[in-house]
């Protein structure tokens, strides 16, 4: 699906975006925050592994859809328990607050928004492409519900990048997922090739 050079180029762009996100998050919360993306997996939506987090794990996702030259969406996904812990670290609340109320959802949406915007913004800048975006949304549910598609034939490509937030020596793992519609895949690969060619 992606050759090794394209993978490396994508990983590099993600790392740039992640660095930018960490810098901004540092400024907002005043704690040292480190973000890293240790692994990258590219799979077809239809092959979405149910063991992505396990079928019965409740997940929290911040979603940002885009369209234009390429169509798709990106998500930042955490097991809901981890998401709540992350919000607690950002707000200095007690970490055993399991209730994920509307206010805490708003906070997670902002954290997700910062990470997604940095990643997608870097991607747009590096690939020199303009996209239109929807307002970020929050969704909670099992993995199947988060990746529900309008069409049964939808076989988008999912690029899964495992992301770890390290705040005050506490690691919280989530996933950055870039969903590229199949019709846009070749264009996306061409953009990456062009980026590599200009390096």
């Amino acid at each position, binding site marked *: 699906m992606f050759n090794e050079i394209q993978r490396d180029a994508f990983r590099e762009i993600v790392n740039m975006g992640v660095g930018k996100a960490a810098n901004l998050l540092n400024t907002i919360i005043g704690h040292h925050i480190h973000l890293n993306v240790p692994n990258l997996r590219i799979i077809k939506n239809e092959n979405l592994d149910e063991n992505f987090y396990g079928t019965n794990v409740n997940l929290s996702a911040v979603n940002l859809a885009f369209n234009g030259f390429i169509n798709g969406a990106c998500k930042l996904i955490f097991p809901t328990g981890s998401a709540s812990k992350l919000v607690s670290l950002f707000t200095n609340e007690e970490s055993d607050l399991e209730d994920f109320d509307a206010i805490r959802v*708003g906070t997670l949406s902002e954290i997700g928004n910062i990470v997604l915007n940095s990643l997608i913004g870097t991607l747009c800048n590096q690939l020199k492409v303009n996209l239109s975006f929807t307002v970020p949304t929050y969704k909670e549910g099992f993995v199947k519900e988060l990746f529900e598609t309008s069409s049964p034939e939808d076989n988008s490509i999912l690029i899964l990048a495992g992301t770890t937030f390290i705040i005050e020596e506490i690691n919280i793992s989530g996933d950055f997922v870039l969903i590229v519609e199949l019709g846009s895949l070749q264009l996306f690969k061409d953009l990456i090739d062009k980026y590599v060619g200009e390096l």
Partner: protein
Amino acid sequence: MEHQANYFSLYNFVPVGICVIDSNYEVIFWNTQLEIWTNIKQKDILNNSILEYNPRISEFKYKSRIDEIFQGGPPTVFSSQIHGSLFPSFKKGAKRQIHQTTVSALPAQKAGQYFAIFSIEDVSELSNRIREHRMAKELALEEVELRKKAEMTLRESETKLKELNATKDKFFSIIAHDLKNPLSVLLTVTDFLKSIWDDLSQEEIKEFVFDLNKSAKQLYNLLENLLTWARSQRGNIPFQPDLMDLSTVGQTTIDLLKMNAEDKNINLFSSIPANTFVYADNNMITTVVRNLTSNAVKFTPRGGRIEIKAVSGDDFIEIGIRDSGVGLSPEDIAKLFRLDVSHTTIGTGEEKGTGLGLIMCKDFIDKHQGKIWAESTLGEGSEFIFRLPKNLVKVT
């Protein structure tokens, strides 16, 4: 600018605050809802910099994100929990609102240029309700925790009461039977002796006196244990750990019980090396070793062997009294050291025990944060061992 403001006038009819700024941070639209919330009229803020109204927006954490919007970047969210409100009210005495703000890019008339549109949602009521709900939940959880603690205290108190009751029962049982019986025997025998004294030979008198002395000694030992235990139960025996030599305890015990052991031709010896120092309460440890050794003498047949020994581990020291006596079944071992179960075995020389000595030993070892137990095979002998922790024990 006036024209642009009219262009956005539809936003005057929505229940959220709407503000539009251009890339110079100048306000080009301010809707009616924002006028109500902030007490600033559109005509007063139009064409003015938003940074003058709220200088906080010029901070890196806001401006760097808003600047991206003017490049057509993705919408950005400012959550209520982290930022409170980016659009404070200038109304005197107005209650501080809490806002959730989303800033999106809005294409300007000029190609490639964007305005930033702020959509401000008032979440004050929601935040307050959630806060109240959280407080109520925390209070409820605190109450549950308090109740749990109260229940635990009650349970502890119930266990303590049960123990006290068992202690009282044991005490009365000893007075009623174990003390009364040997005293009755003494009375009966002395009455009998009195009536037949003139008919007895010197040898027979000697035999009676020997038996009487043995009974009196047993009675004395029992009384001594009973009084020590009673003092311990009343908290009248202070715990005073100090450096003490275990080999001395072994030797003192042997000296005290030598005669009893010799009567049964038992080889009683201590293998504790000289200068085996421990940090413990001398009186308590001496009482424990004496009790365990005295028991071993009782339950070891003629010609047997009893060893008092000590083994030092990494973080503990163990003192064992091993005999070649009658031994104990696993069922009987389970009954040892317990107040709630009565266990009595008759010694090889018809010696009678109450189990009180072992209960007292356990009390004393517990005070040292130690452990006491028995290992035995029926017919092959027993070993009673107690372990003292090294954080209390200093072996030189």
